[in-house]
């Protein structure tokens, strides 16, 4: 495999450009899905919400280089890297350059300074601090490139749309269904999570694996993608239909178009327990992939490939 050496400057560019593009350009699958929801929706207020969102993000957003939403959230990076990749200064440069990129994007008003100390509530001013930005790294033996995926994860969906529970084997499928329904009811009320949402559900693993796969299912899987396991894929579609029928709608004001997609992931888990987690993504589902290949070419896309099954 041809070696790929990424300079620190290039790494910085990948991280800066991907987070800025994520904050300013709507992913094409999200656009398509919102347009098809508008076409199906019969509730007048629901259509007004969706049409206003599109106008805000396309005519007044992308075309004028403005933010899609001022809540640019918490900066998250997911880096998928082949074994042929080396980084100038070593892999820890991922952490250093992510901090520089986020700090600069904040100074340039492409990200809002959201991050504060959790107890004193003092703003760090530049969106960086302990553990943030998050940089999640996956080594993939089957690829010869590096993907940097940027996700500015909005506060509404994160704060109002996160739940976790440890159930037990006897709770089984009924327990799973109850948990999912309870979470949907609670989180979409009054539009707290900015519906239509992508909902991520993680089943199994440990507490942290469970929440991690739920979040990654919500923020990284493209709309319309299905889990390869047919049982899980069927459940995803079943839950989509349930949400449409329940009719909380966009921003919780009624209508069938309150969901973009439902993504379920599972991890093998300890025989004694059944952990389950829920994490919602907002209507904009902001994400951008920057890919660098061994020939030095850089391309940007809306479609991460992240699953590790």
């Amino acid at each position, binding site marked *: 495999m041809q070696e790929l050496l990424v300079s620190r400057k290039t790494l910085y560019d990948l991280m800066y450009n991907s987070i800025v593009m994520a904050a300013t350009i709507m992913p094409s699958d999200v656009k398509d899905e919102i347009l098809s929801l508008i076409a199906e929706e019969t509730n007048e*207020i629901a259509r007004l919400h969706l049409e206003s969102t599109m106008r805000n993000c396309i005519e007044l957003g992308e075309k004028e280089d403005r933010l899609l939403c*001022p809540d640019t959230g918490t900066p998250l990076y997911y880096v998928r890297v082949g074994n042929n990749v080396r980084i100038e200064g070593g892999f820890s440069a991922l952490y250093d350059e992510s901090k520089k990129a986020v700090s600069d994007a904040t100074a340039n008003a492409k990200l809002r*300074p959201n991050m504060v100390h959790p107890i004193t509530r003092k703003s760090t001013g530049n969106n960086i601090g302990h553990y943030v930005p998050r940089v999640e790294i996956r080594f993939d033996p089957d690829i010869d490139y590096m993907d940097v995926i940027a996700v500015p994860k909005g506060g*509404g969906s994160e704060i109002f749309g996160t739940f976790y529970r440890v159930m*037990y084997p006897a709770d089984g499928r009924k327990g799973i269904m*109850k948990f999912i329904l309870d979470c949907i009811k609670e989180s979409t*009320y*009054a539009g707290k999570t900015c519906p239509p949402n992508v909902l991520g559900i993680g089943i199994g693993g440990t507490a942290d694996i469970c929440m991690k796969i739920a979040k990654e299912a919500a923020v990284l899987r493209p709309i319309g993608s299905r889990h390869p396991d047919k049982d899980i894929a069927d459940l995803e579609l079943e839950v989509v239909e349930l949400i449409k029928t329940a009719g*909380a709608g966009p921003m919780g004001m*009624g209508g069938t178009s309150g969901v973009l997609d439902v993504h379920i992931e599972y991890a093998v888990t300890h025989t004694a327990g059944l952990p389950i987690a829920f994490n919602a993504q907002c209507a904009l589902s902001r994400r951008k992939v920057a890919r660098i290949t061994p020939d030095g070419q850089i391309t940007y896309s809306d479609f991460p490939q992240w699953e590790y099954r």
Partner: protein
Amino acid sequence: MATKRLTIPLSQEDVRGLKVGDIVYLDGLIYTARSLFQLQVVEQDILPPIDFSRLNVMVHIGPVMKKVGDSWMPVSMAPTSSIRFEKLGPTIIKKLGVRAFIGKTTMGEKTMQAMKEYGCVHLSVVGVMGNIFAKQVKRVVEVHNLELGIPEATWVMEVENAGPFIVDIDTHGNNLFHQVNAEVEKRFDQVYEKYGLKDFAYTNVGA
């Protein structure tokens, strides 16, 4: 469902004439508020030098602002979730004489009670509207509490034909989300029934 264009300061009559589901556009001076400013007002009685009898529309928002030369301009302005300020709502209405909150989501029972009593409505955003709202700002008049950070500062801005906003709490004790949710709850009940979850209880391993 009526559409109304109102001028700030809003009068008692203006807001008592609104009903849930009405669509509102606003002209005049608004000010922004998040947690820190409201906590200062409620807990420490610290008020910025604003004439609250003229400015009576509070926007729950943390705008993205940019300084161009000597003046500030909003880059993006999308109202945030008002329900997080529920604890502070009644005191804020009483102390500052707020006639309308612009926000997202809704507010709780105690604030709804104060809204009925003092004459105040809650206006909700329509979709994601950060850029639409930013374009409706004619100028930034002044800023207070900038030391709290840009999102938490109190920005006074002049807006023209700002909106659309939907009245989701009126002065008659109605809440649009309660109305929608009553229907949603009924449909969820049928779903719980269908999956045999009516009497389901999670395994309890507690005391």
